[in-house]
C-alpha cells in the first residue's frame, strides 16, 4: 500500500497549528536572545503579554496599532493579488494625511458629519492618487512598481516636510505640525488611549476587501491578472487598466491609516505620523497570506508586539527598543519567511500511523 505522505493535511493544521508552532519557536529563539543579555525570558514574555492584554488600556493600544496595520496590510494584500508589490504604503498614508488635514482645517463652515465624511474620502483620494501614479507608470511605461513606490515614499516625505513647515505650521512655533483640528474628529472610544472609531473602519475595510476580491467582477479580474497576465488578456481583461485601478484601491486603503492618525489620534498634521506602519503592512500581508481575515489576525499580533514591546522596554530598560525590533523581526522570520519549515515534521507526525 502507498504511503500517504504527500496527502492533504487537515485544514485546522494548516490554518492554526502551523502558525502556532511557528509563533512558539519564534518566541523560544527571542527568549534565547533575552537570556543572552541577562534577563529572564519568561518574565519578559509575561510583561510583554500583560502589557498588551493585562489591562483595558493595553488592549486599547493594541487595537489602535492593529487598526493602522490592518489598513496598510490590506493595501499590500490587494496589490499582491494583482501580482504587484506595493512598498509605497508609507508614502500613500503620509500624503493621505494631507487630504484629511485639508478637510479638517478648511471645511469648518460645513456641518461636522459632512466635513468628517469628506475628510475620510479626501484621505482615501489622496492615498489613491499616490498609489495610482506608480500604477500608471507600471502599466503604461513599464517602470517597475517596486522602484517607483519606494521613490514615491521619499517624494512624499519631502513634499510633506515642505508643506507642513511652510504652509501648515503656525508662525513662530518650533514644533513641525499644523494647528489643531477641532472641527472634526473620530470618536475616542477609551480615553486616554488613542483607540478611536477608525477601528470599525478597519473592520469594514477588511470586509470590503474580501467582498471586492472574491465577490465582484473587478476582484476576479485582479486575481486573474495576478495569476497570469497573459491568460487574463485572452479572457478579455485589460491588465493595464486593472493594474492602475488596483494600485489606486491599494493607496486608498493605506490612506485610511491617515484617518486613524490625523483625525482620530493627533488631531493635527504632524511630521512622520505614519511611523513605519506602511512597511509593517508588508509583513502583515505576507503573514496573513493576503487574505483579509489573515491580515486582521496578523495586524492584531503586530499590535500586541508593539504595545507589549513598549511596556517591556518601559519595565526593563536593559531590553532596549532595538531589542524589541529584534524580537519582532524573529516573529516575522519564523511566521513569514520560514512558515513551511515545520510542515514536513508535522506531516510525518500526522501520516505516520498509516504506515502500519
Amino acid at each position, binding site marked *: 500500500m502507498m504511503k500517504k505522505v504527500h496527502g492533504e493535511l487537515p485544514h485546522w493544521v494548516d490554518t*492554526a497549528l502551523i502558525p502556532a508552532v511557528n509563533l512558539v519557536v519564534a518566541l523560544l529563539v527571542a527568549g534565547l536572545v533575552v537570556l543572552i543579555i541577562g534577563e529572564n525570558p519568561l518574565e519578559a514574555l509575561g510583561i510583554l503579554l500583560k502589557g498588551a*492584554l493585562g489591562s483595558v488600556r493595553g*488592549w486599547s493600544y493594541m487595537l489602535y496599532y492593529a487598526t493602522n496595520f490592518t489598513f496598510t496590510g490590506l493595501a499590500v494584500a490587494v496589490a499582491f493579488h494583482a501580482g504587484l508589490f506595493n512598498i509605497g504604503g508609507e508614502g500613500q498614508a503620509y500624503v493621505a494625511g494631507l487630504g484629511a488635514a485639508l478637510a479638517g482645517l478648511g471645511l469648518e463652515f460645513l456641518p461636522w458629519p459632512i466635513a468628517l465624511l469628506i475628510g475620510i474620502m479626501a484621505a482615501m483620494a489622496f492615498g489613491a492618487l499616490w498609489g495610482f501614479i506608480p500604477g500608471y507608470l507600471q502599466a503604461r511605461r513599464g517602470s517597475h512598481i517596486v522602484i517607483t513606490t519606494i521613490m514615491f515614499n521619499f517624494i512624499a516625505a519631502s513634499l510633506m*516636510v515642505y508643506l507642513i513647515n511652510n504652509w501648515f505650521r503656525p508662525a513662530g512655533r518650533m514644533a513641525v505640525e499644523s494647528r489643531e483640528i477641532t472641527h472634526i474628529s473620530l470618536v475616542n472610544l477609551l480615553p486616554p488611549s488613542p483607540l478611536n472609531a477608525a477601528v470599525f473602519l478597519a473592520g469594514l475595510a477588511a470586509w470590503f476587501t474580501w467582498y471586492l476580491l472574491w465577490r465582484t467582477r473587478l476582484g476576479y479580474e485582479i486575481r486573474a491578472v495576478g495569476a497570469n497576465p497573459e491568460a487574463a488578456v485572452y479572457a478579455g481583461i485589460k491588465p493595464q487598466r486593472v493594474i492602475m485601478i488596483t494600485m489606486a484601491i491599494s493607496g486608498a486603503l493605506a490612506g485610511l491609516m491617515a484617518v486613524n492618525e490625523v483625525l482620530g489620534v493627533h488631531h493635527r498634521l504632524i511630521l512622520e505620523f505614519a511611523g513605519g506602519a506602511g512597511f509593517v503592512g508588508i509583513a502583515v500581508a505576507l503573514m496573513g497570506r493576503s487574505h483579509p*481575515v489573515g491580515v486582521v489576525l496578523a495586524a492584531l499580533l503586530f499590535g500586541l508586539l508593539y504595545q507589549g514591546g513598549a511596556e517591556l522596554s518601559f519595565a526593563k530598560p536593559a531590553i532596549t527598543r532595538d531589542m524589541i525590533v529584534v524580537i519582532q523581526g524573529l516573529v516575522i522570520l519564523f511566521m513569514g519567511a520560514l512558515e513551511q519549515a515545520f510542515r514536513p515534521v508535522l506531516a510525518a507526525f500526522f501520516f505516520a500511523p498509516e504506515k502500519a
Partner: protein
Amino acid sequence: MNKRTLLVALAALAAAGYYFYGSGGGSSDKPAPGTPAVVFDTGGKFDKSFNEGIYNGAEKFKTETSQAYGEFEITNEAQREQALRNFADKGYSPIIAAGFAQAAALGKVAAEYPNIKFAIIDDSSITLPNVQSIVFKEEEGSYLVGLLAAMASKTGKVGFVGGMDIPLIRKFACGYVQGVKATNPAATVFQNMTGDTGAAWNDPVKGGELTKAQIAQGADVIYHAAGGTGVGVLQAAADNGALGIGVDSNQNGLHPGKVLTSMLKRVDVAVYNVMKSAKDGSFKAGTTSLGLAQDGVGYAMDDNNKALVSPPMIAAADAAKAAIVAGTLQVHDYMTDEKCPVQ
C-alpha cells in the same frame, strides 16, 4: 483562513487576556517618591548629540545623588503620550521630555497630572503651573562658532550641514551665517540639509557625502547641526583636510586636531538643574531661556583643539561674547520673524 479559525484565535486571545487581566497590571510597582524620569526623542539616547547630552545630565545627577531615574526611548508618535502618562501614572516626578516634538503630548498629560512636575527642552509653547520649559539661544553659540569658522577659513568659504529643514535647524544656521558674515562679509556659506525623514538625524553616510561636496566647492570649515548624521560630517571633514565643527555635546575629541570647536548646547546642565531643583524644592514653572549669559550655550576649548584656535581667535570670540551678554551686539533669532537677515 476561515471563520472557525478566526473564532478559535479570538477565543484564545480573549482567554489569554482574561488570564493576564486577573493577574493585575504588570508594571504597577511604583518608584520611590521624587524619582525623575526622562523621555528621549526618536534619535535615541546615544546619538552623540542632543539626546546624549540629556542622558549625560541625568547620569551626572544619578552619580551625585545615587538617585535612579526612569527612562524611555520613543519609537513612534503614539508612544510620546503613552510614555509620559505611564511615568505620571506611577508617580515619577519630575518628568523631562526631550525635544519640541513632545510638546503636544506633554501639554495634554501635564494638565491631567497637576501634582507632578514636568519639564520640556526646546519648546516654550506650554504655559501650565507644573511645567518648566527650557529653550536655548542656539543663535548666540552658533554666532561664535561662525566667527571662529570665518577666521580659521583660508578659502573664505565655509559650510553648514543640517539634519532636516525645520525651524530649529534654521535657527542654528542663521546664527552661524551671521557670525561668519560679521567677521568676513565676503565669505560664502554653503548650506545643505540631509533629508526629509527621521533617518536624516542618523545618516552619517549622507552627511559625509554632503560634506565632501561642500569641500569640493572650496569650503574648508564645516559646521553641522544634524544629530547622529554629524558623525559622518566630522569624519569626512577630517579625512579631506578640512575642519569640522561639532554641535550640542563637546565633539572635539572625535577627531583630535581636526575639529575646530563644538557649539555647546548645555542640555546636560539643563536636565541636571531640573532634577536637582525638583529634589531641593526650588523647581519653578515657566520658561527658562539659556544663552551665553547663562553659559547655556558656548564653544568648546580643550586639549584636542588647542592648536587650532589661535589667541587672536579666542580674543575675538570672547569680545563678541561679552558684547552679546552686554546687549551691545544683537544676534538675530530666526524664530522671531522666521527670516534670516543674511544668507
